[in-house]
Every structure is written in structure tokens, then in C-alpha cells.
């Protein structure tokens, strides 16, 4: 299977404002990635260059040593690393066998750099998410 279905990506907030054509462009860059139950998918504090949307299975999110939430199909994680080259902000483990769609920084950045409309929409959405976070 090539890429991720755009219906799945439409549920991801940072992509919510993109038109179908723009979303299709990004969706085609995703690659499938599978993890076995118990695998550490993302380690808080480590580097990262990929963003994931869960296709099937469940994952647990830990902040420090404290369990924070459970992610299910359609949920996503790792999106901050798509922008800032910074460290992972949580640890995520595969609670079951986990099938994800993954997008790397290397594939995503050229699309945004080449397409100002996509870049602007993403910037607006990131600003909205920042406001929402501050309001909490």
C-alpha cells in the first residue's frame, strides 16, 4: 500500500485546514511502520524525525513515569518533531501490535518549503493549537 488514506489524515488537527489536493500530496509521503506489542515507539528526551498516525492497535503515552493516556486508531503522535528538530516530549509504547502510518521530517519539510499555501495553513493551525493550550 502506498501512502496513507486522506480520510485518516483529515482527523489530524494540524492537517485539518488543508484541501484534499494538498492533503493527498502529503498523504502519499507516508510509509507504513509496524511495532510489536511492548516496543518503545518514542522515548521522551530522544531525538526524532517522524510523525505517526495509528492505523490499528493501541499505544500508551507516558509523561515521565506517569501514564497519561491511551492512543487508538486515528490518533497521532510525534508531530512536534516535524517542525523543530527537538527532543521527544513523551514516551509512547505499543500496548498491542501497532500499525502506523509514518511521515518523516525529510519528506515533509520540502513539501512545506515548496508550497506556501500549505505552510501558511499549518502555521495558522499551529497558532490555534498554541492558543488552545494556553487557554487550558
Amino acid at each position, binding site marked *: *500500500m*502506498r*501512502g496513507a488514506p486522506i480520510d485518516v489524515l483529515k482527523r489530524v488537527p494540524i492537517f485539518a485546514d488543508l484541501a484534499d489536493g494538498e492533503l493527498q500530496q502529503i498523504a502519499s509521503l507516508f*510509509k*507504513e*511502520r*509496524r511495532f510489536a506489542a511492548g516496543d518503545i515507539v*518514542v*522515548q521522551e528526551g*530522544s*531525538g*526524532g*524525525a*517522524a510523525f505517526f498516525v495509528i492505523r490499528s492497535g493501541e499505544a500508551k503515552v507516558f509523561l515521565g513515569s506517569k501514564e497519561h493516556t491511551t492512543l487508538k486508531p486515528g490518533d497521532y503522535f510525534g508531530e512536534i518533531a516535524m517542525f523543530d*528538530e527537538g527532543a*521527544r516530549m513523551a514516551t509512547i509504547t505499543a500496548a498491542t501490535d501497532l500499525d502506523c502510518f*509514518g511521515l*518523516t521530517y*525529510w519528506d515533509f519539510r520540502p513539501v512545506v518549503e515548496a508550497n506556501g499555501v500549505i505552510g501558511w495553513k499549518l502555521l495558522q493551525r499551529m497558532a490555534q493549537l498554541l492558543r488552545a493550550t494556553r487557554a487550558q
Partner: protein
Amino acid sequence: MNRVVLLEDAREEARFGSKAVGLGQAIRDGLPVPPGIALSGDIVEAVASGEDSALEEVLRWVRPLGGPLAVRSSAVDEDGADASFAGQHLTLLNVRSADDMSAAVNQVWWSANSDSAITYRQRIGKFTRPSVGVVVQKLLDPVAAGVMFTRNPVTGDDERVIEASWGLGEAVVAALVIPDSFRVARDGRVIETTPGYKKIAVRGVPGGGTVEEKLAKELVEALCLDDGNLQALNELAGRCEQVYGPGRDIEWALADGKIYLLQCRAITKGGK
């Protein structure tokens, strides 16, 4: 330009990675390397992306190898060097058939983009798009396997240091056992033999992948190499030094009464 070649035809590190090219050079120089093929970084990425035509191209080359297979990463960085990424990228043993190749290549591609690999790249100042080639070889079913340094990596003395255990060499590489250890002089004289404590052997399983198999009590402290094997390893060490130069770190396997070369790179730590 071919995106898949026989190992002996892998010559461009910037396309196939240094592991593939190193093994290709070994075959061209007559060293006993198991047969295989090399996949370039671009076809690995295409297969990982789910491109059917790329997978079909790979399978045309893989099918004649039969199975089971070893699928090993052969990383390419902007300097064409691979050694600095040793341990960061994946090796999959006992891929049972061509049909499992897509998932195996996808896993190798992601291993170059894993968080641990990216952390390492950031640490060494190479936060750049990784490229990874792949080596596919017929997987041996070795009686014993392990590593060999062509000079002592701790003291720098001019002697072979060999570590060995039953089954696949991953038991030694991943430190799952205390391996038998041997020191052999360049003239073939065995200087020291130290039996290890080998409770398990790593072996392929019919469904694919490997398992840590518990060993019979009498094998735990029994030496897995005899003098003839040590002489053959000493000879391999000499031939590798002739081809690649002094100070080599070798992975080898003993199968069907013959020593095979699985990997040969420069010793990267210790020694004088």
C-alpha cells in the same frame, strides 16, 4: 542504472552502502562470502514506500536465492561511510521467503529513521536525510559463529582474538552468552583457549525470525571450535588483511565444514 545487483557487482558506496561494497570486494577477491544481492538506497526507499514495481524488481533478484534469508542494512551517509552507524541500523535474520521481503526492507528503512538512529545522527552533527542500502544473503545454518579480531583489540598484540558460540553469531554479537575465546598467533599456534559458558544458541525458526534455544548441558562449556577451525580462521584473518589492510574486525560463521566471512571492517576501538 541497476538498483539491484549481485553482491560481487556492488561497487558504489554512495548507492549501495559500504557493507554491500565491502562484501562485494571480498567476493571479487575470492573470500568466502555467502551469495547475495545488494539493493541501492533509492530502491529500498521505494519498497518502503509501498511501490509495487520496486518490490517486484527486488523479488526478481531475491527469488533465485531461495530461503531463508538474512536482510542486513548497508547505510550510506554523505561521506559514504557506514561504520559510524554500526549498531544503529537493523539486521533481520531468517526472513523465510521472498514474500516477506517487503516488510523486512520496510523495517530496515525505518531503522535508519528510528528515534535512536536520529538521536545518534544529532549527536554526531549529521541531522540529514539517512539513506540505507540493503544486503540480502542466503542465511547460513552455522554450527558455530562469532567474531575475530586480526590483532588483539585490547593490547594491540599481533595475534588473532576469536570469540565463538554455538549457532548464529548474534549470540556473541549481542552478548547473550559468555563465548569461547581463543588467542591464536599469526603462525597458527594456539596461545590460549578459554571455554565460555553458553547456555543458549540463537537459531532460525520455521515461521521466520530467530529464537534463543536452550543448549544441552554438555554443550554449555564445550568448545565449539577445534584446532582445524582455528587454523581456518587464522587463514581467513590473513586473507582479509591482504585484501583490506591490517587491524580487521571480522564476523564469521562455520557451516557445512567451511568458514564463511559475514562482515569485515576496521577495528574501531582499543589497541596500540
